């Protein structure tokens, strides 16, 4: 089993680098953004490629490390000399960009509105302002839309996209369909009414719906909503066409999905769920990256014995004092021992969950060590990128 695990770990970067779009998924808190950035850097260093890392909401230090100072979708290149200083010898180029949701929504409306008048009415409607944060899947859709545009722009050989911290994996996969449904729903059209004063003209079959909606929302709001929906439906053709393009790209060989996880029950369960959903959507999983793996040294049985001596031997503090010709705080060895024992337990728990990885399809698995420092600087990303190369 060990042999299989090793051979699996070698292929992640090579496997992913064969694709032009890499979508990183996984539950919140597993370090998706960091891993996405490390993947991008790793690919650029292994091959002469222009790589774009598209992030959603990076931690501030990570944003600084990537050279992103303010919000904006304009990619910023990371200079080769900075990368070399971080120990990454790149042959390619790396740029990073951060999504700004509000401007992505505005751009969507601008792109797909059938006329300037409709565009302005939608952008100024109070419903629109609410929809851009309330619509489930909005962030997910916008990330895909931005990804699609960068891909179509052809400026990059490879785009690594970090997905938003979704409530569920499904939000992400369903986002384009959901937006199409939402914009184009036939019954929404019914609610919009045939015209501004057309409520009474609606056919008998639909009258009860309108009556209930009217009682619930009040006539005035219903009329406002109807007007908004009529305008919003104008986006339908554009959005439907684009969503179909996005699905085509995601299902094509150009795209690879990678699941990021940690060795914890919750994120492993989420990884498994995600991989089964990907299969349903005919979007095959190509790689798994396990982040924050504790060093194997923590499970060393003889080191455990040594730590137990530190924690429990009543004479150990005196021994240290005599060795070091000085005062040793009497509880110091005990704390050292207990600290190791706590980490040992954590490492054992991680190891005990190893079998959960086998539930994932047989794709390459990379293990990234818990970084030596938390600080998300370029050195750390370089360290992770090298770990991905298996160097």
């Amino acid at each position: 089993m060990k042999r299989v695990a090793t051979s699996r770990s070698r292929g992640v970067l090579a496997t992913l680098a064969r694709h032009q779009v890499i979508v990183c998924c996984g539950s919140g808190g597993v370090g998706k953004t960091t891993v996405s950035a490390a993947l991008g850097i790793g690919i650029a260093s292994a091959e002469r490629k222009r790589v774009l890392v598209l992030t959603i909401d990076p931690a501030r230090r990570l944003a600084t490390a990537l050279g992103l100072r303010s919000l904006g979708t304009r990619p910023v290149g990371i200079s080769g000399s900075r990368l070399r200083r971080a120990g990454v010898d790149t042959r390619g180029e790396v740029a990073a960009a951060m999504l700004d949701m509000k401007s992505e929504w505005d751009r969507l409306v601008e792109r797909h509105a059938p006329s300037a008048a409709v565009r302005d009415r939608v952008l100024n409607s109070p419903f629109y302002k609410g929809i851009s944060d309330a619509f489930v899947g909005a962030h997910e859709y916008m990330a895909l839309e931005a990804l699609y545009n960068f891909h179509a722009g052809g400026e990059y050989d490879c785009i690594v996209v970090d997905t938003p911290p979704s409530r569920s994996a499904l939000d992400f996969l369903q986002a384009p369909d959901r937006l199409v449904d939402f914009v184009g729903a036939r019954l929404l059209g019914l609610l919009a009414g045939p015209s501004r004063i057309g409520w009474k003209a609606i056919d008998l079959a639909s009258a009860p719906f309108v009556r209930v909606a009217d009682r619930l929302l009040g006539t005035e709001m219903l009329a406002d909503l109807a007007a908004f929906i009529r305008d919003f439906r104008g986006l339908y053709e554009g959005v439907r066409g684009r969503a179909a393009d996005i699905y085509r790209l995601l299902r094509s060989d150009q795209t690879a999905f990678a699941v990021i996880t940690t060795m914890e029950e919750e994120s492993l369960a989420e990884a498994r769920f995600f991989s089964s959903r990907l299969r349903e959507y005919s979007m095959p999983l190509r790689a798994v990256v396990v982040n924050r793996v504790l060093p194997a040294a923590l499970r060393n049985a003889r080191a455990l014995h040594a730590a137990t001596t530190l924690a429990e031997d009543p004479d150990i503090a005196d021994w240290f004092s005599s060795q070091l010709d000085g005062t040793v705080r009497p509880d110091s060895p005990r704390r050292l021992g207990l600290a190791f024992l706590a980490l040992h337990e954590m490492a054992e728990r991680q190891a005990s969950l190893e079998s959960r990885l086998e539930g994932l399809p047989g794709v390459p698995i990379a293990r990234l060590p818990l970084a030596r420092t938390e600080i998300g600087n370029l050195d750390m990303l370089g360290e992770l990128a090298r770990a991905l190369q298996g160097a």
Partner: protein
Amino acid sequence: MVAARAAEEVLQSLLSRRLIFVTGKGGTGKSSIAAALALLAAGAGKKVLCVEVDAKGDLARALGGEPVGFAPQVLQPGISALALSTEESLQEYLRIYFKIPRLVRLTPLARMFDFIATGVPGIKEMLVIGKIAYEERRVEKGAPVWDIIVVDSAASGYVLPQLRAARSMMQLTRAGMLRAQTEWVDQVVADPARTVLTICALAEEMPVIEAIELQHLAREQAQVAVAACFLNRVFPIPLTAGDAAMLERAAADSEHLEARLGGPVGPLLEGVRLARRLRAESERYAHQLRTRMRAPVIELPLRPDMPFGLARTRALAAAIAGRPS
């Protein structure tokens, strides 16, 4: 002891409320902490309802049960739990207020409401918060059905739209039944004597930043009081730089040290460096939270010896109450 008394005070203040929302960045242990608060409330003799908003089943598992559905199910003595679903909330709503019988999923009426629910901003959030407020008001035989409701809410990015749903709705609806209903829901949520928010964090950059930002936004945008912040999984051993330096000095003669300890010193040094890092981060972020949060910060130790489940929830409950476990 001072810390234990402070924890006790925070807990009493939390348990005097009717509605506790538990939120935080994904992965910070919201479900376990919500479950622990439920155990503590039940331990104080209260009838507790746990509500799971994100419906992954973690809350029920943290209480030793299997994932629950929309109908409340008893999981522990004094604790019932339910998982919210927008669709079932809507059907229940229509049943109660419009006497519309339970609908088959795809009848035109249900579908139209689906679209209203997706289309009108805030309706889904309103159904979530409305159902919770409805449970808060439920009375049977002259007594409230629940003494306290603990909500394992959406992650911090999504909880505010829910908490302020009633308020936003009031701005959109000027008449109609919904207007009157949003008013009472808003009264429940914005009343700090009845409703509070608690925020979970870890000793990492993003969870701490989100906790601090959320505290401000909760007050400004949702008028919801933040009653406590839980710093979860604090590395439990207070290692100092002096401790580590002592081991390193002794390791200069590693053969001698290894003979005395009965094992290799290399892994020990590696472990101690990692433990120092984790402990230093725990302390740094605890300090940052204490200076930047107005609400009390409660540190909860990492329990590497316990898998996710009821036993860990019990240990967490003891830690929240400031008792040894």
